[in-house]
């Protein structure tokens, strides 16, 4: 942990700019999402104020910054509430896949044998299917027990991303368990659980943060795709950019550009931000890509009396 923080803090050059740019974008969205109740002028599904409907498809103006859409919703509010939905789903799906994928990979790599074979087989089958198809199937399956809410969407994304964590952690475990310090742990009498927890875990999760951030970007695009196709979060549950985009498609052909533009921009911007963070982390944490820079030493200017002292010595 200490090492990670230091390497991130001490980054220089391109890697630092990528990281900083990504972080600025992501943090902006996080702040918007957290402050949504105060920043957004309306609820995500509010089409009436004091019993009076908002205008339909109003142009962006002082009253409605980004205009309104065909459902009488204020687009600015929809974008902000959508950020909240997107970040919740991303966070939950990444957290679920790390919590499930990392221990599975650790156990599979360490135990080996038929446990390993079975798990690798299942994970490879998941990995072989197109991810969007898989997400659609799982969101159908989960809609029954969990409804069409955020948790169901997050879980159906989790199923896509578990194999990535599993594979990376399992492969690193297979090579790390041959390390001398693991044998040394065995020699001091550590049971398998302790070996995995204290000797392997910290050394095999190094690349997980990078995969996590890159997956976050991917998760957002999959979520938007699900919403666009109508398999994602139900419109009654939360505001979702992909759904708004699909609603706005017909109007866009008629020249009404604002209902489609702003959710689309939000999707692109957040994906870009998350990808930049992922790439920046990758550049800094991945030793194969990391380039250490020499910092030129600044010698203090020599004062006249110092020079004389030096000559006397």
């Amino acid at each position: 942990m200490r090492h990670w923080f230091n390497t991130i803090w001490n980054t220089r050059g391109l890697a630092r700019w990528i990281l900083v740019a990504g972080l600025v974008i992501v943090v902006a969205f996080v702040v918007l999402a957290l402050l949504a109740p105060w920043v957004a002028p309306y609820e995500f599904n509010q089409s009436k104020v004091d019993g009076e409907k908002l205008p339909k498809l109003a142009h962006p103006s002082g009253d409605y910054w980004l205009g309104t859409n065909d459902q009488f919703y204020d687009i600015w509010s929809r974008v902000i509430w959508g950020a909240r939905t997107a970040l919740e789903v991303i966070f939950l799906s990444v957290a679920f896949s790390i919590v499930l994928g990392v221990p599975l990979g650790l156990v599979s790599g360490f135990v080996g044998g038929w446990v390993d074979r079975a798990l690798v087989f299942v994970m490879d089958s998941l990995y072989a299917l197109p991810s969007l198809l898989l997400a659609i199937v799982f969101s159908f399956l989960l809609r029954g027990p969990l409804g069409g809410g955020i948790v169901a969407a997050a879980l159906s994304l989790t199923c896509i991303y578990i194999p990535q964590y599993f594979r990376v952690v399992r492969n690193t475990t297979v090579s790390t368990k041959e390390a001398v310090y693991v044998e040394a742990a065995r020699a001091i009498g550590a049971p398998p659980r302790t070996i995995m927890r204290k000797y392997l875990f910290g050394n095999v999760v190094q690349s997980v943060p990078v995969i996590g951030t890159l997956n976050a970007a991917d998760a957002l695009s999959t979520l938007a795709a699900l919403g666009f196709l109508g398999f994602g979060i139900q419109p009654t549950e939360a505001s979702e950019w992909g759904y708004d985009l699909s609603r706005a498609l017909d109007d866009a052909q008629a020249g009404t550009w604002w209902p489609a533009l702003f959710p689309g921009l939000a999707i692109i911007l957040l994906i870009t931000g998350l990808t930049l963070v992922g790439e920046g982390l990758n550049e800094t944490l991945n030793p194969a890509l990391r380039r250490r820079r020499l910092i030129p030493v600044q010698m203090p200017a020599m004062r006249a009396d110092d020079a004389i002292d030096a000559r006397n010595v």
Partner: protein
Amino acid sequence: MPTKPETPAPTGPVTSTDAVVEAHDLEVHFALQGSALARLLGRRGRTVKAIDGVNVALRRGEVLGLVGESGSGKTTLGRAILGLVPATAGSITYHGRDRGDVVVSELGSRDLRALRTSMQMVFQDPGAALNPGMTIEEAIGHPLVIHRKLKGAELRTRVCDALERVGLSPVERYLGKYPADLSGGQKQRAVIARAIILEPEVLIADEPVSMLDMSVRAKILQLMLDLKDQLDLSYVYITHDLASAKYICDRIAIMYLGRIVEIGPSDEIFANPRHPYTKALLKAIPEPDPDRMLPRDLPRGEIPDAAVPPLGCSFHPRCPVAVQECGWESRDLRTLLEEHWTRNPGATYDAERDMVGDLGKLDKPELSAHLGVTDSQGTLALLNRIRAENPDEPFWRGVAGIEDDGNGVRLEFHQPHDPALRPAGGVEVACVLYPDERENEKT
């Protein structure tokens, strides 16, 4: 055709009450992975006999050296004593001070883990033996945490005590450091501290100084000797470096291809080496004085394939003084031919290659070998030429007869004899050159 090993003369049950650890007829075999096709067909791969019938006892309070080249099985023997690799056959018995007799080779994993409080290991590469993500304090105290011996302030006191014992003081400077912050010698001291913190009786040291700088080696060895006296330890010291073994060991066992070929007090081994392999190893110790450079007739070739060891004595293909019953066989004939062609210009090979026929036939260990295709006279002449090049080649002592069978030459070898360890003037040696003293007494 495998040679029937000589059964070791019954010495009676090893009643040495002073033994801490005893290996009895220990064998450790590893299965080799066969080809993909063989695995598909379910055929069993070959096995490597890493340890092939070893009897050895570690006496209480002594330093026993296991010395040999890479691949001699010395590390495997050390790991087997700890139970880190399972024994294929035979047994390892630990005579604990307060644990009683424990047969290590029959323990389950839980009992084996409990045994770690009595037997510990020091590793070759101190840089790899410490978890890079643990501080020195965590790493050294972890054995106590695992065995639920101490925690909290007491744990810290013990860790500090262990650090001081191994010379890492002031301890405050080292407690919070990560292995990457320490030098090789400091790391090895930390590894030793971790090994002694459980107060074991036996310490297996697997080449503990071979990865260290010359300047630190002697210090670490001295530290190990001091700890032995302070903590009543017994060491198994595994090394390929006879010079360091001379410094630290009370007794030395010379290992070759999974067997002990000579064992005895280290003074006697150094003053009067008996086995030809021991002699060769001693000659390989570098001499610091350039004027006293001696011709080093180091053993030729490499250590043989342990999956198909040579017949008879495993060392015979490399032995300068091998005699007729040492186990000469068809593979040695192939080596002889290849060495002949290496010595001579390429034209010789072109002229002679067709004369001998299929060399692949010689790869199977047999006591008779057939050479040549049609021109038996030519083949015979070739063999005579090779013999004339080096008449003292020990190979020829093993040839019982050469006969012309019409379409080539057939060589017959003497019946091989696989020598067991036998007492010879203070040491025990496995070589046919030293007849068994016990048998002489009987007659």
